[in-house]
């Protein structure tokens, strides 16, 4: 069996390998090294949860700590990308996008189109997403739909260490701006990851479980909730097919449509708030493009349309559970054409 490492280590390794391979790859972010300007340890943090720890020893000043100015340094990463570098900027929590969104959605995302195709902006913005950390409303959001809505950026949200490494390497090599969403509650999740470098192409969803009865579409942490649900449903004789989107933009609708054509039923699971969500997006596309294959109404499993609460029992209720996924599957199986 291959080596098992955590998602955190997979990110570290992908960055390490790409920095070694390509001198134009640089990293920047708040405390991604840590200890700058002080009298203690350099590389004191390696990012707020230690993801980039150890890279400074290998790559030195190609990792840059930044002042607490996301507009300036995310914008600088974008500007440097437009001038031939391949910067990987860390936004720490995706919730902080509100102080620097213009640089992402009006600058990086639009350069190529606005400039008539004459610009390339190969920047990667890494950010933690998702709830479950008891970090409350401003440090726990998904926000993937906000980026997915914007043409010109690519949005990635892996569910396993294997995908994380391969997709991050692809993100760095990709010539378009990429928002790379790391679920903080998966950092410790371990899985098999080859040591050698590899890239996973964007726009290829992964069928992580085959099944005939219903299609469950998910990404990030929700893939694991879907897998849990599958285990309990299997005991009832219900076999669900699980599609892990992996990249939200571009999105691999073909795989989703193929699966729905086979199963005739669709449940979309999303940790983002429901309105204008990824779940809604996938549901709508299926309702438009594979209506004939649908045997019952589509189900969406999302948090309620509320901010993320702090108190642990509330937060646990907020995040879609395996039980909710299973219930939605049962519901769509009961439904049918009148």
């Amino acid at each position, binding site marked *: 069996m291959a080596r098992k490492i955590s998602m955190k280590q997979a990110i570290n390794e992908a960055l390490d390998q790409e920095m070694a391979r390509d001198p134009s790859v640089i990293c920047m972010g*708040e*405390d991604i090294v*840590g*200890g*700058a*300007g*002080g*009298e*203690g*340890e350099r590389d*004191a*943090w390696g990012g*707020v949860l230690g993801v980039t720890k150890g890279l400074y020893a290998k790559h030195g000043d190609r990792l840059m*700590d930044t*002042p*607490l*100015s*996301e*507009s*300036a340094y995310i914008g600088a990463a974008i500007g440097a990308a437009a001038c031939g570098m391949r910067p990987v900027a860390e936004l720490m929590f995706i*919730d*902080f996008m*509100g*102080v620097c969104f213009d640089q992402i959605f009006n600058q990086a995302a639009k350069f190529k189109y606005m400039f008539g195709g004459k610009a390339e902006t190969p920047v990667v913005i890494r950010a933690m997403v998702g709830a479950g*950390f*008891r*970090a*409350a*409303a*401003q*440090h726990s959001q998904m926000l993937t739909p906000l980026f997915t809505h914007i043409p010109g950026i690519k949005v990635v949200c892996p569910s396993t260490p294997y995908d994380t490494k391969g997709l991050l390497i692809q993100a760095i090599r990709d010539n378009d701006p990429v928002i790379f969403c790391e679920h903080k509650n998966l950092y410790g999740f371990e899985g098999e990851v080859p040591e050698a470098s590899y890239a996973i192409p964007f726009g290829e969803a992964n069928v992580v479980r085959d099944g005939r009865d219903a299609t469950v579409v998910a990404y990030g942490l929700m893939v694991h909730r879907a897998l849990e649900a599958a285990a309990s449903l299997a005991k009832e004789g219900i076999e669900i097919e699980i599609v892990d989107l992996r990249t939200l933009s571009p999105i691999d609708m073909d795989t989703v449509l193929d699966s729905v054509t086979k199963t005739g039923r669709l449940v979309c699971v999303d940790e983002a708030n429901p309105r204008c969500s990824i779940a809604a997006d996938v549901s709508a596309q299926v309702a438009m493009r594979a209506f004939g294959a649908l045997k019952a109404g589509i189900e969406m499993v999302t948090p*309620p*349309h*509320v*901010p993320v*609460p*702090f*108190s*642990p*029992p*509330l937060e646990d*209720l*907020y995040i879609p559970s395996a039980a909710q996924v299973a219930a939605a599957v049962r519901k769509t199986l009961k439904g049918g054409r009148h």
Partner: protein
Amino acid sequence: MAGNPFPLSKAELLKAYRTMRTIREFEERLHVDFGRGDIPGFVHLYAGEEAAAAGIMIHLGDGDRIASTHRGHGHCIAKGVDVGEMMLEIYGKKGGSCNGKGGSMHIADLSKGMMGANGILGAGAPLVCGAALAAKYRKKGEVAISFVGDGASNQGTFLESLNLAAVWNLPAIFVVENNGYAESTSRDYGVAVDSYVDRAAGFGLPGITVDGTDFFAVYEAAGEIIRRAREGGGPSLLECKMVRFHGHFEGDAQTYRGPGELDDIRANHDCLKKFAAQVTAAGVISADELAPIDREALAVVEDAVARAKAAPLPTVADLTTDVYVSY
């Protein structure tokens, strides 16, 4: 009151001490309880910085607004937010300042003029411009104060607010709590100028730097600029140089600190020790008069913890309420 060299009465001095001591006990207790795994989430402690909160807030009433930071407990306590409700909140319990929905980083009490701790760096500064604008319309001489860390002072929101406050001549005060670090990064890496007074000047604001571990230094500087703001004299910036006793957040190993740094700040830059030394040396308050306050503060905190542990958690019904005033 012959023999009192301080600009405050003995009663006021005791009140200030009680505020600082309550904050200290509150934070040290959280440090212990977090270490035990009793407290969920991110917790940023204010211990070591108490003189700033106390020295500023003593000038304020409930009609004066403040906007705080992620390191907000001290500001809350000094602004009069109920310690018991705060503890309930930090434990995620029903009856907490935010009914368990906010947690440490979002404690607010608008009835006390406390507009919220904030998980977004620099975000309080624009809000305080708005509070100051409202005060200007109300014409009751109220002021609004934004707290910001040395690191967060590089946020565009904060910088824009300095200009807006100057342009609109708002009764707004910007307090930079300079504790030398932004997370693990030294203040001197993140900010290229030595003094925040220069930065303020670049926006047309008067600024002043004080030793934020010296209650009296803070008290006087804050009093002066708050008075000016109340009288229509416009905004100012106050830099408090201070120390943080604990890590950036609980769980931080603090390897970025220099050798002996933590011992030194606890020994030589403890604002509570300084205050006690000052008032006892002047013969205004005796150590025996401070001791009961220490005991009472401890009791208040212990009581708060006990009640927080015993309190019920929010339930599913709470999950979907409070999003809108009207649906």
